[in-house]
């Protein structure tokens, strides 16, 4: 779902603009040379009023902070690490409107700070908030902020910033992409109370995993964005042209579809680890995976995020690179449109699940880097309990018998089953163009399901067109669709499976199941994880029975890392989890 954003490539544009009309490369080179005489330390300033105001302040603050906080005498400090990935950081550092994984991660771990973060068991842990309390009746949470965190232009981060961020993301006009976060919070200004400069209270009704949103929500600077109408935030230069954060890395420059450059924040709080080891951290956009692999193997980049499964072996074979794999926060599935006569009977959907050998498909597509999914609960999650669910296993004979029972038999001997009205059991499965794994799924299903008399027609559709086909409530122009879904640690299937939302864009399956409805509501309010675990087990079994989706797999995220990089930790919390602690082997710098 990546969206792209742009900013001036300063190295190209600061020269007098007509020079490139010379057309000869030498002239163009000369023009760009003239542009760069300013030297490496002064950050480029885009030609936008907001940026011209804030970036000089950032420049001054960083210079002052450098003097006040000299780099510690430790060989681990210094150097530039480069991470390459396939797409832009969509909407950049603009946390009010961005939802793409990489962009959100940069807001959390690189450029800004979240109120809390989480340990490896996904238990919340203080971060920008040095402590927090939950009211006994679970109707509010109070955050006590650190007093040593400053925005990169020198302003202190205070409770006002938290209140502003909260009001902004709960304001419908902002169109915050994870609005479901706030379903059971008191939204808008009534929901948040500034108690003093460093204490802020947020109100809610008791519900499950209510702290999770604050783990991923980077706080925004009120003093810079407070005057911007929420509906204009998306277009604001803060996102991609001159973001000002308060995290371990200061924004330096961004060239659209090329690179983001960040530099160490010398004044990052000592108690949180202080200044990052790296001098600079650079995010490069390299849209072709073969090129990314080459750049890693030739050590032009230090980290390659998003390695394709079939590239993993090359990295494992390379003496100078390592491969990290960890669970991605997403799953891939085939969503059924149960409004279609072929698919309205849950027995048919179950038979399709029995007739599809998911184990072998997943092994073939992911080469072991992923696990078969039976529901939306990922294996790394605390609610996951393999022993408590009854998955549907591969059983083509059982599938055939179930279809017979449901009234679908091959009445005209053409190899495809029909029902009593003569409707053939023929299903088109759409997938988006350019996604090989989803294409493989659709094609292997076609092959395997032909054996039990189900005719599957894979159909490739361009991404934006596909979204229109499946998301438009009165269109729903699909039988089946191969899709991916990104989850937070707070799992919530309301939008997918609750019958109240059946006219909403994401009710792809259109199934109605009172048991699912009841469990989703109970899950939403279960504050205690022990209680929730029971409910999740029950819920998963009902979903497996109902089969609104044929769940396929939870992929691993593969990251190639140069062996000169030290202290790199990645897990389900993200690729950039401890970027401030990465350092470069001094001998290989």
């Amino acid at each position, binding site marked *: 779902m990546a969206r792209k954003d742009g900013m001036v490539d300063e190295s190209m544009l600061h020269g007098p603009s007509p020079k*490139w009309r010379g057309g000869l490369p030498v002239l163009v080179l000369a023009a760009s040379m003239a542009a760069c005489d300013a030297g490496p330390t002064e950050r480029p300033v885009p030609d936008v009023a907001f940026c011209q105001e804030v970036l000089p302040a950032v420049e001054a603050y960083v210079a002052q902070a450098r003097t006040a906080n000299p780099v510690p005498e430790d060989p681990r400090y210094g150097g*530039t690490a480069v991470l*390459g990935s396939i797409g832009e950081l969509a909407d950049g550092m603009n946390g009010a409107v961005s939802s793409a994984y990489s962009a959100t991660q940069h807001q959390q771990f690189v450029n800004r700070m979240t109120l809390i973060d989480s340990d490896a068991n996904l238990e919340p842990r203080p971060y920008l908030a040095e402590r927090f309390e939950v009211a006994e009746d679970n109707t509010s949470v109070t955050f006590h902020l650190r007093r040593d965190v400053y925005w990169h232009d020198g302003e202190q981060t205070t409770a006002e910033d938290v209140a502003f961020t909260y009001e902004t993301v709960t304001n419908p*006009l902002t169109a915050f992409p994870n609005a479901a976060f706030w379903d059971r919070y008191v939204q808008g200004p009534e929901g948040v109370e500034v108690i003093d400069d460093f204490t802020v209270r947020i109100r809610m009704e008791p519900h499950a995993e209510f702290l999770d949103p604050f783990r991923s929500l980077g706080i925004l600077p009120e003093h810079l964005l407070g005057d911007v109408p929420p509906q204009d935030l998306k277009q604001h230069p803060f996102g991609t042209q001159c973001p000002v954060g308060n995290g371990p890395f200061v924004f330096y420059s961004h060239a659209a*579809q090329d690179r983001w450059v960040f530099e160490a924040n010398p004044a990052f709080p000592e108690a949180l680890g202080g200044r990052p080891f790296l001098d600079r951290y650079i995010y490069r956009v390299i849209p072709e995976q*073969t090129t990314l692999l080459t750049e890693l*193997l030739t050590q032009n980049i230090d980290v390659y995020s998003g390695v394709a499964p079939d590239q993993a072996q090359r990295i494992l074979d390379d003496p100078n690179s390592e491969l990290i794999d960890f669970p991605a926060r997403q799953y891939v599935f085939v969503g059924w449109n149960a409004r279609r006569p072929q698919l309205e009977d849950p027995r048919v959907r179950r038979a399709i699940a029995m007739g599809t050998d998911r184990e072998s498909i997943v092994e073939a597509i992911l080469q072991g880097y992923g696990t078969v999914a039976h529901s939306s609960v990922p294996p790394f999650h605390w609610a996951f309990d393999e022993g408590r669910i009854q998955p549907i296993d591969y059983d083509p004979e059982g599938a055939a018998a179930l279809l017979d029972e449901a009234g679908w038999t091959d009445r005209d001997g053409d190899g495809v089953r029909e029902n009593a009205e003569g409707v053939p059991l023929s299903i088109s499965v759409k997938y988006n163009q350019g996604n090989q794994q989803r294409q493989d799924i659709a094609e292997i299903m076609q092959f395997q399901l032909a054996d039990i008399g189900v005719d599957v027609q894979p159909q490739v559709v361009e*991404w934006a067109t596909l979204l229109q086909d499946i998301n438009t409530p009165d269109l729903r122009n699909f039988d089946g669709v191969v899709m991916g879904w990104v989850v937070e640690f707070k799992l919530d299937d309301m939008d997918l499976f609750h019958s109240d939302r059946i006219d909403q864009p994401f009710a792809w399956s259109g199934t109605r199941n009172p048991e699912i409805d009841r469990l989703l509501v109970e899950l939403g309010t279960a504050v205690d994880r022990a209680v929730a675990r029971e409910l999740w087990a029950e819920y998963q079994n009902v979903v497996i029975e109902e089969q609104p989706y044929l769940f396929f797999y939870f992929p691993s995220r593969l990251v190639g890392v140069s062996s000169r990089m030290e202290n790199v930790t990645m897990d389900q919390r993200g690729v950039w989890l401890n970027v401030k602690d990465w350092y470069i082997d001094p001998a290989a710098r």
Partner: protein
Amino acid sequence: MTQFVVRRLLGAVPLVLGIATIIFFLVNLAPGDPTLLLLSPGVTDEVIQQMRENFGLDQPVHIRYVKWVGAMLTGDFGYSFSHSRPVVDVLLDFLPNTLILSASALVVAFLFGIVLGTIQAVRQYSALDSSLSVVLLFFYSMPSFWLALMLILTMSLYARNVWGLPIYFPASGMTSTEYEFLSAAGRIADRVRHLVLPTLSLALVLMAGIARYMRGSMLEVVRQDFVRTAHAKGLPERTVVFKHALRNALLPIITLVGLYIPFLFSGTVFIETIFAWPGMGRLIVEAIFQRDYPVVMAGAFFFATMVVVANLVADLLYAVVDPRIRYE
């Protein structure tokens, strides 16, 4: 001559406007919508409606068309949805990147194409001619993206990791990440290093075509009377080839230059993608996927204008190089 130029320019106006109209309706009537890409759970219909309003998509197509044409005539191409910036600024960022790459590719392609074609014509049917033909046909038949991947494999990965050569080339980007810290000379060297592989991928294919044209054109010229006369009056071979034949043989090549001018601006999606070159081709294709209508329309309009202008320039160049051609 002036009259001819004015007439052609006036003729170009309805042509460009017509192209703009077709582009507008093609883009706007395609299925999908930028707000759909932003849709996530919990975002209400009112919010989507508000976004459509912000993007100006709430109005009927014909009203949008009139507004777009009106704004365009004043040089205002609107606001990019995905870049959150004025479209003109976005285009001006990407255009120089594309110019650097395609200009160097064209220079290399024409330079070597003309030289190789001339050599082949002068030594027609020699072993050199035949072997060059084989090599050139090979490059001519290769898709440039395949060539690009092979160049990365050999001149980047193998050169460095397998053969351990002292010179190898970076596989992506326009500059290295230390660019800001380099001296002036270092920066030029850095840019040239980054240019080598994408330039070769584009230039080798183009060069092969140009060399074939050049060979044919040259062969035609060397058979003409004035060349025979030059030989007969005892001029040295070098003078005959370079002074008499080559200059006349270059005439049809000028048409090719005209045809390639739009390519200077449009960039190439495959090469820009493979080498992570932030150029116009990638910009436009990404914009299409994002349904970033203003960028797509402005980009397509710009290319269309370039084609019209390039054709005019090529026509004028004829008159410059060939005194027999006169436009009345």
